[in-house]
């Protein structure tokens, strides 16, 4: 339904990436519509992060193409942000400096305007009282919010989330997805979330895709995913939930 009424912001066609003899992505096709949250699910090692890095231009695909509203990845880069699994915050810069960095380096804004924009971003994510703290002085959840503040300060149209819940406990995982949904509304961006947190992804996403053996095996709404009797989908969901129950105790 969404695909027919809303224009796509991102199109991936026949994306292939291999390292040596190991084919990680065989042929990935994916369409992301503007304003949606799309979760790419998959087991560990199926190439989810590789796919995201190809989308961000950090890796060059061996074949296929990534198109952003009919433009190339390089032209789109400034309209796109990336939230790294380990946050990738500059540990020698304060929270304020981390958030101000992309504005200082990529815009012609004046110093006062940059400071105001950075303070606003920090305030939006509840970090205004920690502006002078270094990332190491913040909790894991706060670091995640700081990374999101940095990703959102340039008002990107597309935000790529690489395993945003990695290493977090179940309540924190739910909180991160709620945060994505909340700030998507507030900042009006499109989100592509790579994760293996099935319940949270189904609850938060507009569409989900399952990456299996280097291809998008399934792509549809969360309801379609949940209702599907496909053995691969069920096996994936059951394995992930069983593994999570075991890990969470």
């Amino acid at each position: 339904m969404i695909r027919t009424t809303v224009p796509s912001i991102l199109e991936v066609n026949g994306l292939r990436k291999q390292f040596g003899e190991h084919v990680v992505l065989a042929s990935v096709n994916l369409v992301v519509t503007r304003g949606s949250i799309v979760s790419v699910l998959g087991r560990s090692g199926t190439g989810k992060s590789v796919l995201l890095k190809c989308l961000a231009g950090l890796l060059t695909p061996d074949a296929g193409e990534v198109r952003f509203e009919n433009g190339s990845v390089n032209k789109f880069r400034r309209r796109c942000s990336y939230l790294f699994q380990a946050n990738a915050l500059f540990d020698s810069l304060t929270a304020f400096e981390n958030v101000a960095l992309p504005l200082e380096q990529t815009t012609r804004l004046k110093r006062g305007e940059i400071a105001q924009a950075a303070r606003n971003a920090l305030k939006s994510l509840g970090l205004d009282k920690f502006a002078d703290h270094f990332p190491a002085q913040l909790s894991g959840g706060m670091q995640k919010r700081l990374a999101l503040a940095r990703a959102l300060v340039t008002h990107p149209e597309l935000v790529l989330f690489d395993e945003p819940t990695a290493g977090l406990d179940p309540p924190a995982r739910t909180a991160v997805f709620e945060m994505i949904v909340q700030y998507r509304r507030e900042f009006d961006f499109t989100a592509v979330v790579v994760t293996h947190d099935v319940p949270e992804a189904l609850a938060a996403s507009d569409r989900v895709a399952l990456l299996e053996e280097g291809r998008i095996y399934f792509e549809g709404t969360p309801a379609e995913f949940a209702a599907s009797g496909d053995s691969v989908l069920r096996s994936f969901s059951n394995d992930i939930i069983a593994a999570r129950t075991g890990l969470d105790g």
Partner: protein
Amino acid sequence: MMRLMRSVGQNSLTTVAGLGDFATFVSHAVAVVPATRQLGRRWIRAVHEQGVRCVPVVTIVGLFSGLVLGLQGYYVLARFGSAGALGTLVSLTLTRELGPVMAALMIVGQAGSAIAAEIGIHRNSEQIDALTTMGIDPVGYLVTPRLFAALIVFPVLTMAFTLVGLAGGYLSGSVLLGVDPGVYWSAVHSAVRVADVRECLVKALVFGVITIAICCHSGFTTHRRIGVSGSVAVSVSTTRAVVLASIGTLAADYLITSFLV
């Protein structure tokens, strides 16, 4: 025999590819200057990082180098009844050779290793990728200011090393061993020509660019270290940076000396 030839061939290709990659890296660091924001601010920070922090080690080593030169020089020259030429020996040795080389090696040990480790950690913790995704050129942000800082830090610290070394030579030669101070400083004054100072500064500039570029490149390519990752890769990059920069300094010293002398 075939295996040996294949190995030599592969190593040669790897070396040539590595040199090409290094040349591209340095060219990129220079070419990106017009597009780099806040270069001045980051340049000042880099000058502090490389220069101010290295002042103690450079001056201390300079002092002891001068002291030892004064001692050794005095005993050798005294054998030939030429102790009065001590100022000439100390000043020319420091200006033309020891000053630029020793200062460069000290800066590599103190600042170069820190640069390689810091950029290596940036690489390991995906901070370099983060810069790329933010639309910031990581070479322009991390490397260019440091490379340009070397253009001022190395000559200044080399001069400091040389001057402190001359004072060290005076302390051991004149104060301790009794060479007349007037004779010592007069020999220094008459021995050092403008061409010697120019050679000293040319060496300092070349060593600065070569060593800091090697250190930055080594840190920047930490993810390419074969068979290691994480903190071990950073450690390997740092060691590699110091070793290659030291070899580069001495090799460049030989070449410059061959052309200038």
